[in-house]
């Protein structure tokens, strides 16, 4: 029955002169997800609102599910729009609308009319009053409540008349592409896809890097990360996933450095490589799924030591999250099931029984000097053999 959607966006509304940039990015993202849906649509931007008009038959649930993945959308209102054929016709339409949308008529309501077209013969107050009366007459169980109605029935008089009362919450945030691009370190665990999701939610486009260590990690582990990138791309748009062969570097560190420091030194090299790939691909920051104290390499001391190798800002959106909170988000966005598939990632394979939890930067730097003979070459080689997979939903 619905013929259009009104898209509400919260945060963009407070922007200043560059507001149109955000709105354009949002329209772009909406058009992008609608391509996945059956049917044709027209997306228009008028008077600080975005309307989606269906040009053909469409699958309502499919459209709503997809719109719920567009950051920047705070609410999705399914709308019916009808030509202005006089107040009697409008009354009949509204009565019919209520009948179809609310099976149980035991509800309180308020009519909220707006006239964008001021030449309509009645003013807003009159419309409210008259339509309210018609509804009370048609459905005696319904009651008016002007302060806290169960149903707020919006009637907007424009070229055509728009009627809506439902607002489905969107994901909020800002449209992807309105805030630059950053490089996500994607491991295959639970946290990093969530971190990517959260930064994408702030409008940042995502590229990703995965450190692959064959034969210690399998092609299935790699496929799992590709699958995760694809799940993130559902919200973040196409993700360019850089797959770096990390085996040689890992083995070299393993050979030369104290075993308890393996993970921390390894992570420093991951950050270094990620930063170089980020710069080559116009990314302005790095994203990790780290959360303080979760594992040895994520103590404040360890984070400080890993962070030291980068000059790009490192975004750690999960830094203050508990594991359960992260799991909740990952279940909600649909990455959890893939994340827990039992394949080794390269961080777990050589882990020492008791890795350092309070690394000393000076010591770590001194031990990294043991690598000076070959490490630059190995890093360069890893970057040169970078394999790029484009993950898209």
């Amino acid at each position, binding site marked *: 029955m619905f013929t259009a959607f009104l898209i509400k966006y919260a945060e963009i509304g407070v922007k200043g002169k560059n507001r149109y940039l955000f709105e354009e990015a949002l329209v772009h993202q909406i058009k992008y997800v609608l391509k996945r849906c059956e049917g044709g649509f027209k997306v228009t931007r008028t008077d600080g609102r975005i309307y989606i008009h269906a040009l053909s038959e469409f699958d309502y649930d499919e459209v709503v599910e997809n719109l719920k993945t567009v950051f920047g959308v705070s609410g999705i209102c399914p709308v019916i729009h009808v030509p202005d054929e006089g107040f009697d016709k409008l009354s009949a339409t509204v009565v019919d609308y209520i009948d179809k949308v609310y099976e149980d008529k035991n509800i309180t309501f308020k009519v909220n009319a707006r006239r964008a077209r001021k030449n309509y013969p009645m003013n807003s107050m009159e419309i409210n009053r008259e339509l309210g009366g018609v509804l009370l007459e048609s459905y005696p169980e319904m009651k008016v409540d002007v302060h806290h109605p169960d149903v707020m029935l919006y009637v907007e008089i424009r070229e055509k008349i728009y009627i809506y009362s439902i607002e489905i919450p969107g994901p909020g945030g800002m449209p992807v592409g309105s805030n630059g691009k950053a490089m996500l370190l994607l491991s295959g665990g639970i946290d990093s896809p969530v971190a990517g999701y959260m930064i994408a939610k702030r409008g940042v486009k995502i590229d990703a890097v995965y450190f692959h260590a*064959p*034969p*210690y*990690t399998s092609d299935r582990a790699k496929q799992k990360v590709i699958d995760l990138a694809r799940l993130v791309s559902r919200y973040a748009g196409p993700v360019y996933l850089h797959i770096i062969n990390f085996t040689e570097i890992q*083995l070299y560190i*393993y050979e030369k450095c104290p075993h308890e420091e393996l993970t921390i030194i390894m992570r420093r090299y991951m950050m270094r490589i990620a930063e170089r790939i980020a710069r080559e691909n116009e990314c302005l920051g790095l994203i990790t799924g780290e959360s303080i104290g979760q594992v040895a390499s994520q103590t404040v001391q360890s984070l400080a030591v890993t962070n030291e190798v980068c000059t790009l800002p490192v975004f750690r959106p999960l830094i203050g999250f508990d594991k359960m909170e992260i799991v909740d988000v990952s279940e909600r966005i649909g990455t959890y099931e893939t994340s827990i598939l039992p394949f080794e990632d390269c961080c777990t394979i*050589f882990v020492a029984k008791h890795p350092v939890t309070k690394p000393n930067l000076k010591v770590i730097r001194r031990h990294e000097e043991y690598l000076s003979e070959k490490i630059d070459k190995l890093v360069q080689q890893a970057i040169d053999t970078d394999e790029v997979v484009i993950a898209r939903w």
Partner: protein
Amino acid sequence: MEVYLDNSATTRCFDEVAALMTQIMCEDYGNPSSLHRKGVQAEKYIRYAKDVIARNLKVNEKEIFFTSGGTESDNLALRGCAYANCRMGRHLITTQIEHPAVLQTMKHLEEEGFRVTYLPVDEKGCIRLEDLERAVTGETILVSIMHTNNEVGSMQPIAEAGRAIKRINPRILFHVDAVQGYGKFRIYPKKMQIDLLSVSGHKIHGPKGSGFLYIDEKVKIHPILFGGGQQNGIRSGTENVPAIAGLAKAVELVYRDLDREVEKLYHIKRIFVEGVSKIDHVTVNGHPDETGAPHVVSVSIQGVRSEVLLHALEDKGIYVSAGSACSARKPQPSATLRAMGISQDLLGSTIRFSFSIFTTIEEINYTLQTMYDIIPMLRKYTRR
């Protein structure tokens, strides 16, 4: 060089099988239940397939029922017989080293109120007849024992077990999961007192999704799938004609020159076992000689994690399994190896090599040489 040594997981389809199936799918695609000529034509393939298999087992063709493969055959045999015969008793016997298709079905039957005895195995992976005889009770209705183990290649004393069971009580049904043994050995159910025999097509160079269950005509069994009543109502569903014809073709080809092929496999196994034994701290599990299956060698390599070795071999074009392919997705170590008493540190270091009639000596030598090269390197970088 590409070397496929994971033939216990699945095998390469014979070209003749693939060609025949293509022809059936594109030309003789009728439904065997249809009354017109196209249906009759399709039915002919099924009749022919039954004939080939029945002759091969020396049984009546009415006793062959086509299924989707080993798992379905096992399910039909166990659940079908358990439900049909539960008035005679509710006790079942199997072994600890069965394939999950049997073990999980047994677990399910336990939930349904059946009692199941799981026979232990010795360090070579074989059951002891005394254990079997002792396990049989007046309540026992069915015994299920695999012919050849999929993880270590140990062969069970099927004929002796059949004799022992029937001596105690001829009414006890004997099911044999021969998914790994069929196509390597001649199996004659009537002589070995086997009442039900499960076979899968894709382990003998036939198509995936094909298989059969031999059911002795005296066996009382209930269907587990209901529908159009095909195959005497025991297995409803339109017969998968291309798969059935492909399966029969594979049976013909595999058994055409069986003795020579099996001798060739044992020759390959000997060379491989000899070669692999030259590596330090390596154990060959089960029977390294001709008392075990000709196509499976399970090797424990101390100090090397099986997954890592698997991927390192993969990198050189050699495809093997860690434990068995069906359980490699789950992180817990194999039940078979544990039942055999393999020590804890070797459980995660066990690799299965499995050969087929396409395997060559050259491939084996390449595999051995590769192992000589990479195992010392992998041992250098193990968890310390």
